């Protein structure tokens, strides 16, 4: 049984048909990536799984349970967490308060331990714990967004363009972090524009084009595929 399974989902914004008949799955322990150009429907797909958007038809299963109509606010308790596109940390809450919000559904006696965990993983955040989220640099904000999503110990972590807007050295750090989380057993669904980096960490990948999956395969296979190379990796 797959951890997450999307079965022919269709998502609309009014009349705009943004995601068309999409089916894919993520197995326990995998890193799966969705890649595609701007406007391919990657964020729409993630937001639909996270319950922020709703599909007009199709079904989403998490651990075999139908979560298609479960509202976003209830999914964390089921083990789903997302770092949304643009991070969306709370700029006017302190770093520590942001993390506390990430643990909103966690047993209150457990929260301190989780905070320590987060600070061990991201020591920079500990130094800045009292600072407002809005005063952090872009890279620190991305770390905060990831730490915040990890506070609930999610069974599936969804990341929407974690490398967006970051300097190359920080992109590398973020991907090291993703590998690290994966090694510790976190299942990850990763959306990226940076196809090269995403395919190198992913076990499997799906390629989206205007709302449809056009190719899928192992990360390695797609990295080596000539069509993918020319379309997404800017290479020959």
């Amino acid at each position: 049984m797959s951890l997450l399974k999307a079965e022919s989902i269709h998502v609309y914004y009014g009349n705009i048909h943004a995601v068309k008949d999409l089916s894919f799955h993520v197995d326990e322990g995998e890193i799966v990536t969705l890649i595609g150009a701007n406007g391919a429907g990657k964020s729409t797909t993630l937001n639909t799984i996270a319950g922020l958007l709703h599909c007009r038809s199709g079904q989403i299963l998490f651990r075999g349970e139908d979560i298609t109509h479960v509202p976003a606010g209830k999914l964390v308790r089921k083990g789903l967490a997302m770092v949304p596109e643009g991070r969306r940390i709370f700029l006017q809450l302190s770093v520590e308060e942001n993390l506390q919000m990430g643990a909103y559904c966690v047993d209150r006696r457990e929260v301190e331990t989780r905070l320590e965990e987060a600070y061990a993983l991201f020591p920079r955040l500990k130094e800045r714990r009292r600072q407002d989220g809005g005063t952090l640099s872009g890279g620190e904000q991305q770390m905060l967004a990831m730490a915040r999503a990890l506070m609930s110990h999610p069974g599936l972590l969804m990341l929407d363009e974690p490398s967006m807007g970051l300097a190359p050295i920080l992109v590398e750090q973020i991907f090291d972090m993703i590998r690290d989380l994966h090694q510790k057993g976190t299942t990850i669904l990763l959306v990226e524009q940076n196809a090269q980096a995403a395919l190198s960490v992913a076990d499997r990948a799906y390629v989206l084009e205007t709302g449809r999956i056009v190719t899928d395969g192992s990360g390695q296979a797609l990295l080596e595929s000539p069509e993918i190379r020319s379309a997404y990796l800017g290479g020959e």
Partner: protein
Amino acid sequence: MTIFLRTLISGLNLGSIYALIALGYSMVYGIAKMLNFAHGDIIMIGAYTGIVAVMTMNFPPLIAILTSILVCSLLGMLIETLAYKPLRQAPSLSVLITAIGVSYLLQNLALLIFGSEQKAYPTLGAFPGFTVLGVKVDGMTVLTLTVTAVIMIGLTLFINLSRMGKAMRAVSEDRGAAELMGISVNRTILITFAIGSALAAVASTFYGMTYVYIKPTTGSMPGIKAFTAAVFGGIGSLPGAMLGGILLGLIEQFAKAYISTLWSDAIVFGVLVLVLIVRPSGLLGKKRAEKV
């Protein structure tokens, strides 16, 4: 000198009432992101509840006040659930018009039940005053000011330190991201309305005891003044609402005493316009410096 001190005291009294209403206004605006124009009418309902509780049900004063708080909180939650919640995705103009509709609904409901003749608010107790520099400071003013200050401090601590308060700030900033944390946006907004309306009930008690006569339109002027106070202080900011309320009360009473009773409201709103020209986000409002 005597006139000055007397005006100062009545200004503080009126200002605290405005501040209490403005706190609720500002909180609902900051978290639910809407102008609840029916907020003033909740005061009117609170005052009538106080009258009925004391005159008809013969409740002792404290129980009467608590009844009024309970009724107003429930009413606030009812209004939010029936009128505003269905409009969560609607344009803000629709919500504003709905709020004005709710305001008229409450006024007409009161007209139907209590009639158009004004009713006297009961005296809930004697508050002995004292004399400073030859001016009698009545106990009512001291009580109003103290209660308002305590509520403002309590509310600020609640918003800043409690789990629910933090969730409220998170919802205020980004509803979608708050949902992703597992925070129920609807429940958070509902609680905000309950608290804001409870504050309006407390304000209604002081208003009733100070101004005595209550009629169905009683809530609209203090409502508008409190909204002005909230904007004046920086809408969304609780200390701003407190400061704005007190200043507004003082300006109004001083204008009445030294310039003209007729012109006092014009002066109040004139000052508001001036402040907003100099500081568009109000006295204590945040100038948002957001990083993208």
